[in-house]
């Protein structure tokens, strides 16, 4: 077997098992977008610099473009599509993003939201200053940053109240 031979990969995504045939060199990002049609996770740079592809693996925020799909086997992957409830009810962070107008073009947004959920869970949403620092890995060229901070702050308060 070479690195170019498609091999079966099983991924646990948003609580569901997905199977695909992919070369070992396929990234988790391309597996999600091109193989599984889960295009909510965005490709902004494909070199780990922008944060648009942020997903959770075992609850930790991870850049899907710097993760091989095969590395994620046997681990719990959460993408933006898995954040809302089964009934479609928005996650508190999603609702806060909408209310605070924390996005414009929407392309960095799934990554921002996945980062924000983890940022709150990590306990790094204690102040605006801390939110800015721990959300700095997710670039937003539309410049929604102050509104992203407001949304994270709002969701963090809701999470603790």
């Amino acid at each position, binding site marked *: 077997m070479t690195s170019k031979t498609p091999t079966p990969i099983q991924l646990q995504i948003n609580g569901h098992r997905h199977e695909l045939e992919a070369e070992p060199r396929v990234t988790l990002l391309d597996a999600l977008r091109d193989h599984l049609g889960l295009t909510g996770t*965005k490709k*902004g740079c494909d*070199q780990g610099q922008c944060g648009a592809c942020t997903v959770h693996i075992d609850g930790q925020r991870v850049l899907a473009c710097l993760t091989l799909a095969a590395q994620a086997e046997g681990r719990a992957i959460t993408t933006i*599509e898995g954040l809302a409830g089964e009934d479609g009810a928005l996650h508190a962070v999603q609702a806060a993003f909408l209310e605070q*107008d924390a996005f414009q*073009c929407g*392309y960095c947004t799934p990554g921002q939201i996945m980062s924000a959920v983890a940022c709150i869970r990590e306990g790094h949403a204690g102040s605006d200053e801390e939110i800015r620092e721990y959300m700095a890995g997710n670039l937003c060229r*539309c*410049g929604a940053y102050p509104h992203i*901070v407001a949304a994270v702050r709002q969701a963090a308060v809701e999470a603790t109240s």
Partner: protein
Amino acid sequence: MTVHEFRTRPGDAKRGDASDGAVLADQVGGRLSRVDGPAKITGAAKYAVEQRLEGLTHAVLVESTIAAGRVRSIDTAAAEASAGVLLVLTPDNILPLRTATDWLGTPPPDVAYCPLARDITFSGQHVAAVVAESFEQAVAAAALVKIAYDEALAIVDLSDPKAGDGIPVDAMTKEWGEAETAFASAPVRICNAYNTPREYQAPMEPHGLIAKWQGDQLTVWEPSQWVDGMARTYAEWFGVPFENVRLVSPYIGGGFGSKAFAYGYGAVAAVAAKMLGRPVKLAVTRPQTFTAYGGRAATRQTVALGADRDGKIQSIVHRGVNETSVDGMWVEPLGSVTSVMYATPNFSSRQNVVRVNTVVPGALRAPGENPSAFGIESAIDELAYEVGIDPLEIRLRNYAEQDPHAKKPWSTRQLREAFAAGAEAFGWSKRSPEPRSMRDGNQLIGWGVAAGTYPVRRAYGEAVVRILAGGSVEVESSSIDMGQGTYTILAQTAAEVVGVPAENVVIKLGDSRYARAGVTGGSRLAGVMTGAVHKAASAALDQLIGLAISDPASPFHALQANTLVVADGRIASPRGNGPEVSIAELLRSVGREHIEAKGDTMPANSTVEDRYKNYTTIAMALPHTEGDYSRYSWCAHFIEVRVDEDFGTVRVSRVVSALDSGRLYNPKLAESQWKGGIIMGIGQALLEEGIVDRRYGRIVNNNLADYLIATNADIPDIEVISVGIPDPHSSVLGGKGVGELGIVGVAPAIANAVFHATGKRVRDLPITLEKLI
């Protein structure tokens, strides 16, 4: 095919906040949340290259590694033998295309167009492309294409000794009075040079497309700021009728001027799709986005201000230069703000362009106005210190009561109000005037001010409005939403006119099959399209009321009313007598499936050719000084910086901006767009710079880790204040431009604040630490 529909969600705030008085969120002027928001925050929004198509293939570009010369040979053997490869495109085997009309509407020369180059004029030019079954296979094979060059000497940038003085652009010359004589005899004279580097749009969604042919019908999924203009280009390249090309672009992951045109890689993908008979996806890589199309040209300006000892300007002499490519022409109008911001009896502005080995530069948020404001708004600050007058006061002292260039009254100019409101909110009166006189520990604190402006560009648009059997309203337009809020403000417009809740309005955008629209650029779309939708929706409402009054089957027929009112989806007599029925009930009773009206804002006698030209070129755009008025948006930025005295690092710690964009169609979204412009301006002032490797004429920081854009940690809270009033001369509903305005004047406000903090005047962007220590 995905149908892109949006409805507002129940539970969205129905009312605007107190600042809007009693404006309903549903109506024009209300703070309705983005109607396309739910799709974007759940990952459901499908951007261009995310379409899943049967038999999709993947293309990867191969680019030149020299900046000037000629391709001697291309060895494709290894690439062609690589697993999964379907086609290696080179200049030798690519189908010939025709040259297309440019965006100005200039008829093209009758020469073939080839998007792959033999003659190399810049590093990063497309030379070949590999198409394979999978993305990974295409990437691997692209690395196996071997190109041999005959290299020539490149002119790497404006500072290259070979660059020369360039070519005068006579159309940019603006002169009145005796500028040079008046400057020479002025009691106070300052003259300095201001430079801006290459800057890049860097939208978060890289460019790219999927092209698919069915016979001679081409469908292109591509992010687009100009669906009809790009469809025309594809049609002309391939010599097929305009109607044969469908361009689909419901979501655009940021454009900032970079997604208005079809570029060479689009031609490559469409040719490959035709040659293979299979759909082709070509996603431009992040590094390739720095050369696959142009960013903002590097600029050089000298600004000479002659004034009396009270700071009153007597003369402005301005000279500008921008770089362009070896075989393309881009003019960044550097005298655009210089010529309108301040009253002066004598003025001269001239501009040259200099050819260097770069991709042809392009539009980046406020092309022209942005660097122009950096020059004049820095220069007047320098004059303020020279004559010992407060930087805000000197701007008021030289306030232009009319357009100094066009010699026409402003349609509206709330700049004085912007200065007042911004200064009040910022606390400008507490400013200590001396440089280096405010500090907090080892941080030097500086307060700076600068103004900005952007012309109101006007054009025409059309829209189709349907009132459907169920009582909902549907709007179709080929205009687009790249985050400005088109979906939302058009829903508000249709809802208000027809008299239904905004959640019952479905907006369909970004498809060349819909009613046509011109370019989304120059901050013109909102004014154009709210006008068109207003007109179409009014016509649909008239039809509805006409049916209700006159159709024998209508429950209102016996009432013999002159008119009826529609509110919250229900029809009634204005006097309250007679029945009240829902729109759905009325349509059912008169046996109609739907009502449809098309509305456009074109002059009544427009021909089919006029319309085509209007929507696919900018040849018919209306000058902002047309008629009796000069139309501009205005703003004033007040910015605090903190400069570490030891390290020279600059942090923006406070921003208050007051802006006049006329009437706001949705303040919530307009505020976001203003702030976005301000944030891009902070990046421009402190971070952004395309760095050229002088040995190879190559941009070395062609990625998002090395080409620095502002991150969340770079940005403080930003306060924006609307000081606009409805401007009936600028648009149907009274708005002026929003999107570009916010960035104009930010960089000089920061440079001025840095001078106030440190006593050092930085006239070269970006303001990096080595320039301060």
